[in-house]
């Protein structure tokens, strides 16, 4: 699929997502389609799982620290139904690929160079993470990544995984 087709699809889906979000849907997972190395990914299709959405960029220093942690969390809780989606917001996706070479991810990485998903989630700082429950509601949000709060994030995830 060419880049342009992708762009059109993103724009179309974004408009759609915007319409739907105003129509009294209690769902925080947008219908946005995101590009991943494994193909397209729609966040709303992840409903039913606990989703950890992380917004990151190659130039964001704390993001470097969050990646090893997310690798670990993915390994620990993926089998219990946790889905980590790290959405990259670099304008130049190549910079993100270089970052991934230094900080490899074993969870899902998606690319959103136009920042549509970040707008949807009203991202306030980099990195930002959103923990979303099985019903698609935002359960917790964090701006920045603090090593000291590692265990807090993990506890939140564990609690949410334990909730049907």
């Amino acid at each position, binding site marked *: 699929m060419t880049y342009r087709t992708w762009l059109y699809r993103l724009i179309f889906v974004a408009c759609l997502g915007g319409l739907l979000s105003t129509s009294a849907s209690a769902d925080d997972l947008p219908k946005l389609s995101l590009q991943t190395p494994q193909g397209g990914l729609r966040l709303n299709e992840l409903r039913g799982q606990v989703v950890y959405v992380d*917004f990151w*960029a*190659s*130039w*964001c*220093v704390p993001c470097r620290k969050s990646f090893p942690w997310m690798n670990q969390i993915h390994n620990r809780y993926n089998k219990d139904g946790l889905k980590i989606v790290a959405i990259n*917001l*670099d*304008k130049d996706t190549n*910079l993100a690929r270089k970052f991934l070479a230094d900080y490899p991810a074993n969870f899902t990485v998606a690319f959103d160079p136009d*920042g549509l998903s*970040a*707008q949807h989630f009203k*991202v*306030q*700082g*980099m990195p*930002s993470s959103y923990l979303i429950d099985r019903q698609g509601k935002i359960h917790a949000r964090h701006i920045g990544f603090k090593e000291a709060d590692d265990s807090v994030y993990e506890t939140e995830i564990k609690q949410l995984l334990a909730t049907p």
Partner: protein
Amino acid sequence: MSSRVPRVLGISILLGTLSACSFQPVQPWEHDLLAQKKMQLQPSAVDAALDEHTYFSKEASRGGAGAGGGGCGCN
């Protein structure tokens, strides 16, 4: 002194408004260029420290760019 201050204030405000022509909020994820070292207020801390010391020893003025800094007996 009194006549100089407002003029410089004027320059600074002008500088601000010039850029403000195209002003719209920059989203947190659009800080990519600003995050580069070369876009920092002081891209090289050692250059800045050496410059500050050099000009402090050769000229009568000091300060402006930041607070702090070590004293020396060179002026």
